[in-house]
């Protein structure tokens, strides 16, 4: 699985790096990755296609094209990020571009789950907090941020003579635990419950000619 080198792996306790801002509510997964790029049997190459149509329209001025954001790892967005299609190609494209954490006001649920399955935490913060964080990022794109997953805290690197600024971030309890324990990819946990799976099959009426009803 050479393609997965450098993708999230193991316990995820801390994400460090520069950030970029994508303003606006209801940014749907069709925009994150337009449908024509789904015509493939792999996720390879999606990193270059992220926000393809928006970038085309903005001719190099889209945040994902600006040189100062190259290598950014934290995406700061607004409300209902990732709504619409369930395509995992959307978080795959963001991940392959380099994003390792997202901070937003809220997410569509399917998108949140898809990100978690890739080891990308989707943190939330209230409107005003997100706006203030976005302002910091925009004013100085070279700043580095550190997110402590366990503490739910984002810290901005302090410049000379400054005191460090913090933002409190929320992450649904289950997701936090899964990331910290390295079990964010649920497959292993699901497979561990063989007896419980059998018991469930045995009690579901529709798997037993409705005899259990």
């Amino acid at each position, binding site marked *: *699985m050479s393609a997965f080198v450098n993708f999230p792996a193991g316990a995820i306790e801390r994400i460090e790096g520069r950030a970029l801002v994508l303003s*606006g*509510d*209801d940014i*749907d997964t*069709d*925009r994150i990755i*337009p*449908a*024509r790029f*789904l*015509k*493939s*049997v*792999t*996720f390879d190459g999606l990193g270059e296609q992220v926000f393809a*149509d928006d970038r*085309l*329209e903005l001719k190099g001025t889209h945040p994902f094209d600006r040189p100062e954001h190259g290598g950014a790892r934290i995406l700061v967005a607004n*409300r*209902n990020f990732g*709504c*619409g*299609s*369930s*395509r*995992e*190609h959307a*978080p795959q494209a963001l991940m392959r571009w380099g994003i390792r954490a997202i901070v937003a006001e*809220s997410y*569509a*649920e*399917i998108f949140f*789950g*898809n990100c978690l*399955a*890739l080891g990308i935490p989707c943190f939330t913060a209230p409107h005003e907090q997100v706006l203030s964080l976005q302002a910091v990022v925009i004013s100085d794109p070279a700043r580095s941020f550190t997110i402590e997953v366990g503490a739910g805290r984002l810290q901005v690197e302090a410049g000379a003579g400054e005191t460090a600024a913090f933002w409190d971030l929320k992450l*649904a*309890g*289950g*997701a936090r*635990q*899964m990331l910290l*324990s390295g079990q964010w*990819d*649920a*497959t292993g*946990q*699901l*497979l561990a*419950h063989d007896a*419980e*799976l059998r018991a*469930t*099959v045995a009690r*579901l009426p*529709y798997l037993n*000619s*409705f005899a259990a*009803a």
Partner: protein
Amino acid sequence: MSAGTLYDKVWDLHTVAELPGGSTQLFIGLHLIHEVTTPQAFDGLRDLGLGVRHPERTVGTVDHIVPTTSQARPFADPLAEAMLAALERNCAEYGITLHGLGSGRQGIVHVIAPELGLTQPGMTVACGDSHTSTHGAFGAIAFGIGTSQVRDVLASQSLALGKLKVRRIWVEGRLPKGVYAKDLVLHIIRILGVKGGVGYAYEFAGPAIDALSMEERMTLCNMAIEGGARCGYVNPDATTFTYLKGRPAAPVGEAWERAMRWWSTLASGADAVFDDEVRFDASALSPTVTWGITPGQGIGVDETVPTPEQIEPNERPIAEEAYRYMDLVPGAPIAGLPVDVCFIGSCTNGRLSDLQAAAVVARGRHVAPGIRAFVVPGSEQVAAAAEAEGLDAVFKAAGFEWREPGCSMCLAMNPDRLEGRQISASSSNRNFKGRQGSVSGRTLLMSPAMVAAAAVTGHVSDVRTLLAS
């Protein structure tokens, strides 16, 4: 927290285990797959050295990338051909039933599972497609998942999930003539917003819902996801049972009797507790048309494009973006807006009753000059039933193209797409920027009858006027 609801009952019954960290391992009773979101899932299985735990609980079809003009193999598009071939290979390797082209059972995944009787009350249904919420029409808990989760369901027939809250959407009255389930759900999303349902399952109930056919209930639940609700459902009742009886996968004989007895226990009880409740009145509705770039930007066909002052402050930025993208002027009437393309189809409105409603409008009329109009049945069974009634002839006589089944211009992964700034009247479910295959293409969502009305008049028209004349 909700209690005594169908959602709670089905959730509890399917709970395999509580997982460390607080999520629940939920058994998936029916897993539906298609060509777009699965090749990487099967590769993931192979990478992990895993097999498919319950191949008999997974059913596949092809819908998203299939051409709707000629479906002869190999497809002209090599990428589409490769995706279809991968699904065929994977299903054959793991012993999964695939309803392929020409099987008589192929079609959009959310159309075929109900019509085959696969979707039943009390099940959990998952599919790598957000409109899996459709299957909630049967009183199932049905939701879309991503590709990693498709892999997990293949491997373990289960998923790690958090429980949703339940909002009851109570609808009084009856839909007036010319107003359909599509108009109702567009109206609900307009009022509750595209984010209003985040964190919730929507239970649709009340006299107006009781009166809906199964196909109408599917339209309604289909678009729950557009309102942010990962699943929507209707409590099963006599309408549900009548629809299911005799379908290929429905139980028969004594099992049918036992099934009905069990299904009858699933509905949310009179003592059910909901996390939230909202009320609507169907009788007051008009045909609804979207004017913007989210399904929540809908208005009655007799209304005008809202002005910024009529829009909540935090919804204004996206409204401004919509005015620009759609090239619409705030305050302008939506009726009379010229369209270029008319599309009838999709998992929202590609079923027989949708085609019947559109055919009533098309019959004896003709598509306006310069308009390209086409009808894409939701499945091979829908196509056959429509042809048996002569609906294909009605549409063709009226100047519509009659196509082979598939998703088609709903997301334009096949050759059907908008060109440049074309504007479409579409019976599909998403009007996102670029959704119908052109970066600058524009989409107006509406009911199939309204699409037919737009096709024959050349512009957005109130179908009630055409039905009256």
